[in-house]
């Protein structure tokens, strides 16, 4: 394993019989991923895209030795779907489902953490390592194997940027879409050490958004511990302050959370910050060239 997934990753898809579950099971398989089981209560014995379906994650794991989960279960049932995965011994769960209440996600996050399991998401594109495996929904076409790592809070914008990297003739080592919900299982600061330790990543692209302090916290880690070159972009520089989360929210993130504070923190940490997404591929290509010269 390099960053979270590799050729030994064996995926169980929870909610496999739903539309999204079925579509992306197919896409994951096309990517080369071992999708070994699906779960939909009451549908045991059936098959989706050639993948056997089970009633419970425990059954699925027993039969298939799955070691990663991809969750498409609708929001009202997502909490228990994740808990079931953790109880079944799986230690990596990508939650694609959007609109999960954050109070549910708090339970999920703390339960998983206490059992030593990692959540990516919710409301996220997931993880893809070209040539190895994909757990999630990032379009296959944007990838080619390479040495650029990507961590992003966005969805579509990530696809655009990853695609841009491919278009300048480079490829990706691993791409993680963290999801943009208020509570995410894995944040920049959790994902950065994985890329620091990854021998297959030379350059990192970090795509953030306004709101929260995840980018500032990530920048602090970059400044202190991250030795590879970073190209960053923060979406929403021109967005209106919008409908804020009341006064208390402002108290928590005092003096942080705007595009300005994020960009400043990243620049202070030594990252190259792109002003627009279309600038990223060229900046990455420059860094790669500089590295080659050294």
């Amino acid at each position, binding site marked *: 394993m390099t960053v979270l997934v590799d050729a030994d990753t064996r995926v169980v898809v929870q909610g496999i019989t739903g539309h999204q579950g079925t579509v992306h099971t197919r896409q994951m398989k096309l990517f080369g991923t071992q999708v070994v089981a699906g779960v939909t209560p009451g549908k045991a014995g059936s098959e989706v895209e050639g993948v056997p379906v089970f009633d419970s994650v425990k059954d699925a794991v027993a039969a298939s030795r799955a070691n990663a989960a991809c969750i498409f279960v609708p*929001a*009202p049932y997502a909490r228990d779907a994740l808990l079931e995965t953790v109880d079944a011994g799986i230690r990596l769960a990508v939650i694609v489902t*959007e*609109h*999960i*209440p*954050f*109070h*549910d996600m*708090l*339970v999920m*996050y*703390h339960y998983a953490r206490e059992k030593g399991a990692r959540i990516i998401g919710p409301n996220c*594109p997931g993880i893809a390592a070209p040539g190895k495996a994909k757990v999630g*929904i*990032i*379009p296959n*076409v*944007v990838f080619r194997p390479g040495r650029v790592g990507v961590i992003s809070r*966005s*969805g*579509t*914008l990530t*696809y*655009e940027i990853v*695609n841009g990297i491919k278009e300048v003739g480079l490829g990706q080592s691993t791409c993680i879409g963290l999801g*943009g919900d*208020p*509570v*995410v299982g894995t*944040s920049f600061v959790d994902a950065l050490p994985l890329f620091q330790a990854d021998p297959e990543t030379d350059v990192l692209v970090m*795509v953030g*958004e*306004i709101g*929260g*302090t*995840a980018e500032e*916290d990530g920048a602090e880690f970059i400044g202190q511990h991250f030795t590879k070159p970073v190209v960053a*972009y923060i*979406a*929403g*520089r*021109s*967005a*209106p302050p*919008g*409908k804020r*989360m*009341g*006064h*208390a*929210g402002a*108290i*928590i*993130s*005092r003096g942080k959370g705007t595009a300005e504070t994020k960009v400043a923190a990243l620049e202070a940490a030594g990252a190259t910050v792109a*002003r*627009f*997404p*279309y600038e990223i591929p060229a900046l990455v290509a420059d860094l790669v060239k500089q590295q080659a010269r050294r």
Partner: protein
Amino acid sequence: MVKLAEWRGKEMFRKYGVPLPRGAVARSPEEAESLTAKGAVPLPCVVKAQVLAGGRGKGGAVKFASSPAEARAAAASILGLEFKGEVVREVLLEEKLAIGHEFYVSFTLDRAARIPILISSAKGGIEIESVDDAAIDRQPVHPFPGLTSFERRRAARSLGVSGSVAKSLDRVLGALWQAFQAEDAELIEVNPLAQVGDGVVALDAKVIIEDDAAFRHPEYAEIRDDRTPLEEIAREKEIAFVQLDGNIGVIANGAGLTMATLDVLKEFGGDPGVFLDLGGTDDPNKVTEAFLLMAKAKPRAVFLNIFGGVTRCDTVATGLVAAMKQVPASDRFPLVARIRGNNEKEGIAILEAAGITATPGLKESAQAVVAAAKGAA
């Protein structure tokens, strides 16, 4: 998110046993007079505009009355006022209590730490943003086991209360915590929480319920005070739609891409007025609906910026072309489409067949739509 008006927040607080002033809501001066005359609201009383915007005190939206006639007059002067675009349709009448110290308490989410947080300050009654950091106590509350007695004691210490006031505070914090979880709140804020006699009373209530938990709370479905009419329609159709002051409409997919699109438009001198996030749809009907909604906002020009990942470009193009046919000629506007990704060629072909030019470059197309909006002005 659903912001509850003060009176709704207090109605919810009452369920959990939070002490409140006696009071009632009036929707007309006559009702205000009658509520006080028949004693439903003891006199003297406070008459407060029920709007979601802050700063009511300064805006003449909080008055006092010591007779039914005064209550009527106060209600008459407040009802119909406008605060930051919001018209006052309800006033809350509440007995005027002899209050001592004013405190601030709230429960909300600390996103970075992924944990609920109890914020307390002895400096209540003013906006918490203006309170010095050192005077604010922030205390994480683990969802398991939930708010503990020592956390409540720490809050009491930060508020500088002891004895029976601390006991009353202890009960109130327990009730607010329970409400925070059970009601799926993003925020429960009481400012001021006031000392009255040897207990505390919630004089205000700011409650925000999380939209994503709506399936557990049908009781909040009817509260839609905080949206424009078009935003309300969008919500019903599950389209993310926000109205601003500018004149360029933006349709994109994904929050990040939408924000990045706004950034680029601003860079080239554009002024985005509406943005609409299609999300991960691959239903052409939803695209059509979104587009017709956009037309109703009467933009000077529209920028369609799609990266087809989950979404297919041809689906979007098909939906868009269908929508264009339904927009009356008088409401037409220049359209710049930029579509990339999944089934890109098919999408471009569909658009071009309908006479719409589609380009793959974000920079170029942004410049084009800014020029179009200016040309249309």
